[in-house]
């Protein structure tokens, strides 16, 4: 077995629509070691969830298709496996938690039974034994009075409790990898921390590797060992979490980090954003997909940069031609940013017929 538990190599997942092909995941590569916690961040629509579904091979075909690349799980290519072997992987070796616990539990099935189901499928337990394990799993995820709650239905649980049940389901068969697709987005902030703590605690206990998909940088900072930043279906930067936050090297990561509002700064400071919107994945721009929004952009960015290690740190990879730490580049980017802002201000302040009439 290789160094990695899961290796995603140049994965391409496309969706065929009438207008053409949506390149939801377009050549993403990353890897997870056994027991490691990997964060995947990026804004909405950059291919995070599709990557997760691709690993489970649950992208509906059609309209989806795996156009290339490979997903090696314990040196087996999941994209090549027959469906029956893939079913053993799902739930048995890779567990998954979804964003919305409200809709992911079957409303007509008691939660104990839903947890027991995976045990019955994969470990071939009898219904009594499976239910017993389910109760102890419910206890482990912190549901009080688990024995009676196991026969309750999802609608009798609160959102946080349901997410706990989802975690119990995902971890029932002691998988080697847990994919958590925005596990706290639909939850109350106070519950979010509990759920994250639970995930991290239980996964420590079981030695489970975690892929945590989120757009919340705070979650990533607290939870993960390493971070993958995705943009427009591509991995643009990956580094150990501390390194990424201390020393971001891709303009997109820089933008993400500087757009996090901070409590310790001036209250009147304008919130920083990354101007523009992600590219249309039907016709992604040639070259670097971030170029249209990037203040560092140069002519060379019209060709796609490779995902190469940053000088001096083999664990830190970025897909960018520009060295963002170079003061000259920074000055250039600052100038471009200011020019952009001024141009925008000008557009906003241009008197239209309506405002002219109002003032006169």
């Amino acid at each position, binding site marked *: 077995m290789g160094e990695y538990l899961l290796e995603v190599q140049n994965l391409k997942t496309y969706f065929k629509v009438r207008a053409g092909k949506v390149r939801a995941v377009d050549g993403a590569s990353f890897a997870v070691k056994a027991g490691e916690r990997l964060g995947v961040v990026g804004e909405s629509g950059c291919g995070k969830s599709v990557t997760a579904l691709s690993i489970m091979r649950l992208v509906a075909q059609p309209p989806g298709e795996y156009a290339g690349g490979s997903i090696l799980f314990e040196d087996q290519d999941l994209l090549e496996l027959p469906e029956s072997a893939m*079913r*053993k992987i*799902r*739930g048995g070796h890779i567990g998954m938690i979804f964003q919305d616990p409200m*809709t992911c539990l*079957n409303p007509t099935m008691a939660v104990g039974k839903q947890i027991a189901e*995976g045990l019955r*499928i994969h470990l071939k337990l009898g219904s009594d034994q499976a239910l017993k394990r389910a109760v102890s799993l419910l206890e482990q995820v912190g549901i009080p009075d688990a024995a009676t709650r196991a026969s309750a239905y999802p609608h*009798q649980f609160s959102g946080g409790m349901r997410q706990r049940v989802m975690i119990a389901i995902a971890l*029932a068969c002691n998988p080697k990898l847990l994919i958590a697709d925005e596990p706290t987005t639909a939850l109350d902030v106070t519950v979010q921390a509990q759920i994250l703590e639970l995930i991290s605690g239980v996964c420590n206990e079981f030695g489970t590797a975690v892929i945590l998909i989120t757009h919340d940088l705070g979650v990533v900072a607290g939870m993960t060992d390493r971070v993958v930043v995705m943009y427009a279906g591509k991995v643009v930067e990956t580094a150990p979490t501390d390194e990424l936050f201390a020393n971001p090297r891709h303009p997109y990561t820089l933008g993400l980090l500087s757009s996090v509002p901070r409590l310790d700064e001036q209250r009147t400071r304008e919130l920083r954003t990354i101007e523009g919107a992600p590219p249309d994945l039907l016709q992604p721009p040639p070259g670097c997909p971030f170029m249209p929004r990037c203040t560092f952009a140069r002519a060379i960015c019209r060709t796609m940069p490779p995902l190469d290690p940053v000088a001096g740190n083999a664990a830190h990879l970025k897909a960018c031609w520009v060295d963002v730490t170079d003061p000259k580049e920074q000055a250039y980017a600052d100038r471009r940013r200011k020019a952009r802002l001024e141009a925008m201000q000008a557009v906003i302040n241009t008197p239209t017929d309506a405002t002219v009439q109002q003032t006169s």
Partner: protein
Amino acid sequence: MDVPGQINITPSEEEIEELLELTPALVQKRRSQVRIIFDRFIRNRAALVGAAYLILLFFFCFLGPTISGHNQPDVIHPADASQAPILKYPFGTDDVGRDQFARAMAGGQVSLLVGLTSMLAAIIFGIGIGSLAGYYGGIVDNLLMRLTDVVLAVPLYLLLFVLSATFSDGSPRSVIFLIAIFGWTYAARLVRGEYLALKEREYVLAARTIGARNFRIMFRHMLPNAAGPIIVNATLLVGANIILESVLSYFGFGLHPPTSSWGNMISDGQALYELAPWLVFAPGLLIFVTVLSFNLVGDGLRDALDPYMTER
């Protein structure tokens, strides 16, 4: 260990009991799903009346003959021929002196049996076809639904007349079979529609992520969620099937004498309508009220099984 100034915050057992008594809402046991549905059902008066009538009807048909002693539907009493309803013969007798009360009960057994069994067969078949079509979609869906369309396009009564004239031996079994092989179409369409919607639900995706097979997803996860409409449809189908059986028997294509059913009782009695109207009214009224009750119960279930129900 009572250290002065430190407050003991762990309540004792007794205190907990007391607290629980003070907050009855928390102690109140949650009602089960079935209980919630039942509570909602009995709040619907019309459905309740229908259900009560149906229960009485079952007792009437299956226990009535033994209890009342009217257990000889086929025996002729020539001395009492064409008797109007009296205490001895509550539904009167026909022109050869058969006890109509006994016949109504025996016929009721057959009618209920035919209605329920053919419903069951039709629903099971409909669920099979509909869930395959809805779940797999694509070419499977197309083939099965076009087949359904073909069956629906055939003039039902004419085909049933022809088929029963050719194949049926007039036994309840053959009539059940005839009704069932054409009764599944609406159930299939309904189930397909439900499955088309249900398969996009996230819990179906979640079931897939734990490695469930297609059949497990179809019948363990999706079928219970489609149960409401299916049960309603099944209830309404019983009424429809009882009518269908009566119509077939009325035209002489259903159950053959001496097996009595409400349909062929009306058919037998209509020639004597002016002399002995009770021969038509009794079974006619039974069919009418029974079908009405099944429909009322179906409507009641439709409300009770509303998927958006809340625990009220």
